[in-house]
């Protein structure tokens, strides 16, 4: 009887100790949590509050109402989605063949070729945007060589418009698509392909009907990252769009820098945040977020 009681007490003590340990280990995250609270949760929460303040300082939906009524804002959201969709689509079209190529190479050569993806990834986005500005301008290298080779006669308007924005953004986003896609392609079990060949599939059939469907989760993860990042993009459209491509993040900045209008900016920011989180939430039902975040860089 006593023996049972002691063992019971011991069990309880052990359980408590395990609980304490779980908690104190979790406590190691507290410095990080505190700084995130101060520099992210508090400021973004404040923006939420500001977005519901009218010009007279009363709680209201004025800012959101104005956003709904204004044609300009509708156009800005449409532009943002258009640019994000086009960037994602182009990245998938260009990134897929390269990721596939890399996944088929022997490890050593693949690692060297991967450097061509990692190098732009590590290079400042501002520097890359600048490079495109120099290359694509009226008297830039691309126009000069295009005319020199007789491909076109007049300088093409390649920059300060949607073309330039898309070229720059696709170049900047490609690594974000290729790296997760490459990772998932590497983990495809090649026995499936052998089995397909064994059952009489031609190489082309095996690719389209076996490899391609198996690579979809990776493609989806990469495309999701590109789309989310593109929605909030600012630097590249601001420099390469030449004022013709206005995206949400740019309008937020403009409202603050030019008009010091915090209400309108906050409301725009809140909508952008909710769209981003909504997309992430819906996607997390189809693909694990850990897969998206793990393994790259």
């Amino acid at each position, binding site marked *: 009887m006593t023996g049972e009681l002691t063992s019971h007490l011991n069990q309880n003590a052990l359980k408590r100790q395990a609980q304490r340990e779980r908690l104190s280990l979790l406590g190691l995250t507290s*410095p990080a949590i505190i700084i995130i609270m101060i520099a992210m949760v508090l400021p973004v929460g404040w923006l939420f509050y500001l977005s519901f303040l009218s010009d007279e300082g009363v709680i209201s939906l004025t800012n959101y109402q104005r956003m709904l009524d204004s044609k300009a804002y509708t156009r800005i959201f449409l532009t943002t989605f258009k640019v994000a969709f086009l960037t994602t689509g182009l990245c998938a079209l260009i990134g897929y063949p390269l990721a596939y190529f890399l996944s088929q190479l022997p490890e050593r050569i693949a690692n060297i070729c991967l450097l061509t993806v990692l190098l732009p990834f590590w290079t400042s*986005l501002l520097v890359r945007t600048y490079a495109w*500005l120099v290359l694509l301008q009226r008297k830039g290298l691309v126009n000069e060589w295009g005319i020199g080779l007789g491909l076109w006669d007049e300088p093409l308007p390649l920059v300060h418009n949607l073309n330039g924005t898309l070229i720059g953004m696709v170049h900047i986003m490609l690594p974000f698509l290729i790296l997760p896609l490459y990772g998932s392609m590497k983990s495809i079990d090649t026995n499936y392909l052998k089995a397909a*060949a064994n059952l009489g599939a*031609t190489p082309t059939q095996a690719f389209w009907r076996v490899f391609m469907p198996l690579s979809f989760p990776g493609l989806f993860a990469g495309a999701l990252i590109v789309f*989310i990042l593109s929605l909030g993009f600012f630097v590249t459209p601001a420099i390469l769009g030449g004022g013709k491509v206005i995206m949400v993040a740019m309008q937020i900045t403009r409202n603050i820098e030019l008009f010091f209008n915090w209400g309108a900016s906050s409301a725009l920011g809140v909508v952008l*945040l909710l769209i981003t989180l909504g997309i992430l939430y819906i996607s997390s039902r189809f693909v694990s977020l850990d897969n998206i975040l*793990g393994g790259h860089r």
Partner: protein
Amino acid sequence: MLNWFKKPASETQITHGARLWLYLLAGIIMLLLVLPTVIVIPMSFSESQYLEFPPREWSLRWYEFYFGSEAWMSATRTSLLAGFLTMLVATPIGTMAAYGLATSTHALVRFVFLLMITPIMIPVILIAIGAFYVYVQLGIVNTMLGLVVAHTILALPLVLIVVSAALKSFDMSQERAARSLGASRLQAFFLVTLPQIRFSVITAALLAFLTSFDEVIVAMFVSGGDNATLTRNMFNALRDQIDPTIASISTIMILVSTSLLLLTQFLGRKKNK
């Protein structure tokens, strides 16, 4: 050589010859990924205002201008210091958090992990204007403190992801063995675990530095005056016109990030041995 064309290239027995188009296409894409950035390097040595390629006349004029300008030099110092401080803050905090999340089995682990990676999932512009608003109230706009705090939360998720990945492949029973032999938890971490994940921690630190050094949007709002960063000044210069000085600064920045990347590759190779 001809034999190579007929050799099977994959499990489906497709030949290299039949795949030639893929190799070509991939080659072109890889060139397009690298060339646009690299081409800035020779252009920065051009004498002309218009940045020719290849330069008709070579000169160091844009570098002289950059190194001679007090504004650019001060911005460079600010960026280097901010990057360095961000690295010093984000690396230990992020490593601690990664270790805590990897070892604790508390119910909140998943939630805390999600909270900690949010800064790279949500649009940076929100963090930028939010921080700006709060900093105005606190009177720390245009200070190094404010800049480093904001950059730290952008760097934290990357540190967390890199170190967590390393801890995942680390065999924790080694640490338990050390503790059963009398080491405290802290000793076990520093003497057993840390030495084995050190290359990942260094990679994470370099990433933290680069995150701050390359960051534009937050810096645009919360840095300024004597504490304006290099990227902030570059962005402002670019909005007006194509200043050739930017080409020389870009070249230096490309060299910095390339050498950091090669360093991590080198460390990674060492780790695998």
